[in-house]
């Protein structure tokens, strides 16, 4: 008899009535149908939005898509794997700079002499992702050996070194003044206002509309890739090593190898996000890629929900949209004033709110917005906080003393097996 059938046969005899798995299964399929419809509806709305929404919101939308890509990448590293990183801004910078350098034109702008390779923008985008990955790869031997918390501080180094290089390496980055980002194009189709002129049911499709779709596609790809990772072999390994490195290693996971690889993946996400950032702003400047940007990304994933891809999306939307909302509705929102109006400036108000929200989320809702959303939709799966391996109650010695179950007649003594 083969081992598997032996074990299986034994299991079948031991099985105690599966309780209500059928009912649960039926409920699950109905719920998944509703979910499918909702997703389809959401997709239709996202696709149709450029027909109805003014340019400002479409541009904001593209920026948010970029932030979503970056936040998903950071969440894979911090939320899923438990490796705190404040270096995300650095990898965004690598992506953004690579793009403007590889696809930019050489030339002089003001005081600076700029180099540029004039490659097609798609090449710049790919190189941006790859170089960010390479930068991650170079740092990953350190990242892999450090405990999560040491990495948090060590990664500060990359941000400061990055800013310094951005400021100093003028011919590539444009130095202190930054440089403009070339328009994106794909096989002759530009994501600008012309070339070709485009109308869809009477609505002119210009740069904002076109970028919206580009952002949607990229963010969707980033989203699906991360979801798939989390639901399969590498994702399980990462989550386990977050909860216990020793347990993961003993179960056969090459802990250092995985820490290095997730650092690489995360930095590639950041690279793509950086390229999108450059496209969204239309230019890059060193000061944009400081510690503050890293912290904003951290705020996104904490508020959204550590370790959750949906959470990263929600957090990215919330954090990028909030300052804009404050700006736009400054008159209505209490305590927020316009320029010199005595109240808080929109950016300040948003930062106060992020700070407070981070504290409140960690204190009261470690699963973040995703956790709240799950509770509303009734998918209350008890997700533990990162490092939640410790959240299981310690073995209470009570279980043995208080249990009054009668001694079974066939004790595990000699020859009791068949």
């Amino acid at each position, binding site marked *: 008899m083969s081992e598997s059938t032996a074990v299986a046969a034994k299991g079948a005899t031991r099985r105690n009535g599966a309780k209500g798995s059928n009912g649960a299964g039926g409920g699950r399929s109905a719920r998944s149908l509703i979910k499918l419809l909702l997703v389809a509806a959401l997709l239709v709305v996202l696709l149709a939005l450029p027909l109805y929404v003014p340019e400002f919101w479409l541009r904001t939308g593209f920026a948010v898509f970029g932030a979503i890509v970056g936040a998903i990448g950071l969440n894979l590293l911090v939320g899923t794997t438990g490796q705190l990183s404040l270096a995300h801004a650095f990898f965004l910078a690598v992506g953004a700079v690579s793009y403007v350098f590889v696809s930019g034109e050489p030339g002089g702008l003001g005081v600076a002499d700029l180099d540029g390779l004039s490659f097609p923008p798609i090449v710049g985008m790919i190189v941006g992702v790859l170089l960010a990955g390479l930068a991650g790869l170079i740092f990953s031997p350190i990242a892999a050996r450090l*405990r999560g918390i040491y990495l948090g501080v060590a990664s500060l180094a990359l941000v400061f070194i990055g800013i*310094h290089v951005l400021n100093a390496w003028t011919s590539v980055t444009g130095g202190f003044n930054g440089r403009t980002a070339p328009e994106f194009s794909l096989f002759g189709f530009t994501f600008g206002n012309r070339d070709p002129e485009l109308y869809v049911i009477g609505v002119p499709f210009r740069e904002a509309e076109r970028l919206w779709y580009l952002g949607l596609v990229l963010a969707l790809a980033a989203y699906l890739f991360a979801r798939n990772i989390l639901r399969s072999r590498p994702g399980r390994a990462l989550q386990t090593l977050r909860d216990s490195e020793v347990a993961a290693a003993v179960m056969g996971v090459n802990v250092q190898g995985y820490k290095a690889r997730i650092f690489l993946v995360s930095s590639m996400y950041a690279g793509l996000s950086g390229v999108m950032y450059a496209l969204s702003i239309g230019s890059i400047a060193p000061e944009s890629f400081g510690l503050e940007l890293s912290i904003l990304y951290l705020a996104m994933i904490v508020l959204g929900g550590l370790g959750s891809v949906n959470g990263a999306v929600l957090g990215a939307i919330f954090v990028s949209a909030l300052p804009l909302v404050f700006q736009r509705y400054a008159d209505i929102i209490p305590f927020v004033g316009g320029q010199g109006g005595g109240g808080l400036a929109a950016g300040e108000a948003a930062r106060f709110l992020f700070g407070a929200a981070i*504290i409140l989320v960690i204190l009261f809702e470690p699963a973040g917005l995703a956790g709240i959303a799950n509770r509303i939709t009734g998918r209350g799966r008890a997700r533990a906080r990162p490092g939640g391996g410790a959240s299981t109650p310690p073995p209470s010695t009570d279980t043995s003393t208080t249990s009054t179950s009668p001694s079974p007649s066939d004790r595990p003594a000699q020859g009791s097996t068949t």
Partner: protein
Amino acid sequence: MTQFLSLLLNGVSLGALYALIALGFVIIFKASEVVSFTHGSLLLLGAYTIARASDSIGFFPAVLVGLAVTALAAVLVERLIINRLRGAAVISLAIVTIGVDIIILTEMIRRIGSDILNVPHPWGGGSFRLGDVGISQNRLVAIAVAAVLIGLFFAAFKYSNWGIAMRASAEDGETAALMGIKQGQVSALAWVVAGILAAVAALFLVGSPTPGVTPAAYAVGLRAFPAAILGGLDSTGGALVGGLLIGIAEALAAGYQDQLLFLGRGFSAVVPFIVMIAVLMFRPSGLFGTKELTRV
């Protein structure tokens, strides 16, 4: 040679200040298992309070107020937030301190704006020369004060009830609790001490040769993080060595910046981080940090 000696002296002074901040960082880690990213903004808070208060009540009372405010802010963070999160993942604790940091820093930047607040140090902005070796008087006083404080700290850490309680609970929290050590008190006191040390460092860091209190003091505070890490997060001795190492390295890089110009202007500000990376590459737990027992 004299230039080198001058730089060395300045480096020691800067390093002593970094060591003060790093010591606070380390004792917070030992007492509450928290890596406090609030330290940069606490430093700024201390400097700001001293500068503002000296206008009305004079320098020395203002220093006391500054120390008190910073210590109070630190202990509030511990009592209101960290204390409620005992047993949470280290990374969550670190992130929560970032949340606090955002709030304090935003408020500080809002209040300071583009001003440069002046702290009227009674020792003035002059410099002290011994032959050709020179150092600002502010930094000279800093060395003396830091040396005294560091000495006091190590004595207290070794002999006082608090120090013993703290080392015991860092060693084995459960046993220490059974022995009647109240971890909450140990932890709160650690934050108070860390707040005071940061404020003292701030007092000198915003004096000559630095022009005054600006939001840039925050970045100076951040450069003490590498000091704590490269010494080893759980080693007080490491914080001292790390602080001095980083201070000297930064001062030398600043002094020889003309020779280092090919690395870009302002290179000295990133030297602490480069030193840290170099050390971590070979010793992932820092110079004196406890090594992991387990191999993965």
